């Protein structure tokens, strides 16, 4: 496989509060290959959205990126000037936001959203070129050209989300970040939107990071999956292998909680609660809820380690598997 398009190294994001720093993302490290679909899952507050916003350097105060590198084709995004970073957003790495309904300007026609985005990066495009390009874009996401003349309130939730996808790809980025793009949509529309996103991603040969908490959607869409817990990546690996044989106890419990159509009325929650990120307990953040916790889990922070080819886990229970 060629060099990864995106390399994230020890990314740390803290939210500064009066009570001290909330460590929303700690030492997040992963690679994203060209044309790869990666999923990032976790409960609310696990740091998944913070992590991807940090990739775009869009964390806003009181949040601060406290360290780490994000290499896009070898160039460190963290070292760029704000103006250089602005040029990268959309053109090299783009975001499809969580709430499409709130991401469009209600007093702007759909078309002008595209023109704004494109002209911010390329002043040389003529009016005719712009019109032709946006026409292709909305067609690519399965919308009729007449939506370009409409205002956001005239579109359904699924249509708005597709407009956001089209805007996310209008500058042909190498990396698309989709932050829960379908969480507000019905299952049928969700499936259509995900199929659209998948088709576009293949056409552009772009890589994609899909953020969400729906393990079912992840299983349907991604090649590789990362599981976050309390600000840390606890497991990373190919999706079929992670679902087939989860290594981290949290992943295993998370997969067990999923309702399926194979068994009725069996509910298995994960006992206990996510620890506060403000006064995170020493040691592994999961040890209080972990059925497999051993002697030193309460004092040692486990590092994400490659225990099998392509499979990374932050748990001592599998340290032996590498040998």
């Amino acid at each position, binding site marked *: 496989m060629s060099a990864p398009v995106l390399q994230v190294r020890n990314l740390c994001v803290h939210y500064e509060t009066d009570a001290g720093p909330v460590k929303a993302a700690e030492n997040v490290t992963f690679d994203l290959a060209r044309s790869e679909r990666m999923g990032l899952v976790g*409960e609310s507050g696990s740091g998944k959205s913070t992590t991807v916003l940090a990739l775009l350097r869009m964390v806003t105060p009181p949040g601060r990126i406290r360290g780490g590198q994000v290499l896009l084709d070898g160039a460190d995004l963290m070292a760029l000037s704000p103006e250089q970073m602005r040029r990268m957003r959309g053109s090299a790495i783009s975001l499809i936001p969580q709430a499409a309904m709130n991401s469009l300007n209600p007093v702007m026609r759909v078309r002008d959203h595209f023109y704004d985005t494109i002209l911010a990066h390329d002043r040389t495009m003529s009016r005719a070129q712009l019109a032709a390009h946006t026409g292709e874009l909305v067609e690519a996401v399965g919308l009729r050209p007449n939506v370009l003349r409409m205002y956001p309130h005239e579109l359904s939730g699924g249509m708005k989300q597709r407009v956001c996808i089209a805007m996310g790809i209008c500058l042909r980025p190498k990396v698309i970040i989709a932050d829960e793009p379908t969480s507000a949509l019905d299952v049928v529309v969700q499936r259509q939107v995900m199929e659209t996103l998948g088709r576009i991603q293949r056409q552009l040969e772009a890589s994609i990071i899909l953020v969400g908490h729906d393990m079912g959607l992840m*299983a349907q869409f991604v090649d590789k999956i990362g599981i976050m817990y309390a600000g840390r990546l606890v497991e990373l690996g190919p999706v079929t292998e992670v679902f087939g044989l989860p290594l981290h106890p949290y992943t295993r419990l998370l997969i067990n*909680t999923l309702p399926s*159509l194979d068994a009725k009325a069996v509910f298995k929650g994960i006992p206990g609660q996510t620890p506060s990120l403000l006064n995170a307990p020493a040691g592994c953040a999961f040890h209080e809820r972990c059925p497999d916790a051993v002697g030193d889990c309460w004092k040692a922070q486990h590092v994400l380690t490659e225990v099998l080819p392509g499979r990374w886990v932050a748990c001592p229970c599998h340290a032996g598997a590498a040998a």
Partner: protein
Amino acid sequence: MNATPLLEARNVTKVFASRGTIGARGTTTVAVNQASLAIHATPPSIVAIAGESGSGKTTLSRLLLGLISPTSGEVFYRGRPMEAIKGAERMAFRRDVQAIFQDPFEVYNPFYRVDHALEVPIRRFEPHKSAAERRALIEQALDVVGLRVDETLGRYPHQLSGGQRQRVMVARALMLNPSIIVADEPVSMVDASLRASILESLLNAHDQRDIAIIYITHDLTTAYQVCTSILMMYSGAMVEVGSVEPVIKDPLHPYTQLLVGSIPLPDPTRRWAAVQASSSAAGQHSTTQGCPYAPRCPQVMDICRTEAPPLYAVSANRAVACYLYRGAPAVATEDVSALYIGA
């Protein structure tokens, strides 16, 4: 099933009319069209009302809760028409039929501790109870939903997680010892890993306290997990009703087939089949004639566009509103509930 149902909707229709603004004509939306449903107390029914947004499932639940009145058709509570229930009887109804709503963030007043949300209903319905008795009732209900008293009482809503807040709401509903709980999307705003515990507490209430449950959802997986019967709605109409097992495992209505096929199964080895799903339901309420699903249906026939199909009793435990099954005997919608729901 001879006993009078606890709660029954008979051929209810709800039309929302919006008055036209300047230069625009008013429009009407048929949110619920000829729906029937009966919930029994013994044995307590556990029924899912499922459908996409805009299918009328929440409107139907609001009709059953007596929050709105139907345009036509009637809702009965223990055999009495809803409009006739007034005064003290209305109070008893309010106590006996409890609701749990979707958003565990909006239902709390952020200025009060969560105790307030639990205290108020007891004061209202059992004013003679002492503070100690109230406390005991609250503690008992929290225990049923698996919340620790010392970690819950005395806290403000923002100090609890979404899952905890929603479980407090389940506890609040249980406390008054209702006969029925209407839960409108109780887990859709809660993390997947916490859904299990909320659904489990609902199911425990059903099993241990004989409380009937109406579970309103768009999530067919949890509907399958929790319920025994299901009522699938599309654009206000019932499209498929019956036991949950055959409806989900072997859907007959083309719409149910589409929905079941779109469930993202948490299994990367069983991905979505590459079926071209037709466009969404948005803005297609306008068809007043024929089957509401006809504009999207891959198996549409001429008759579908002109006349809405009745429910056909395809088997002992299921009815489908689709002309594909017209060989089976048709059932009047008001009889459907008596036949299937609550078994």
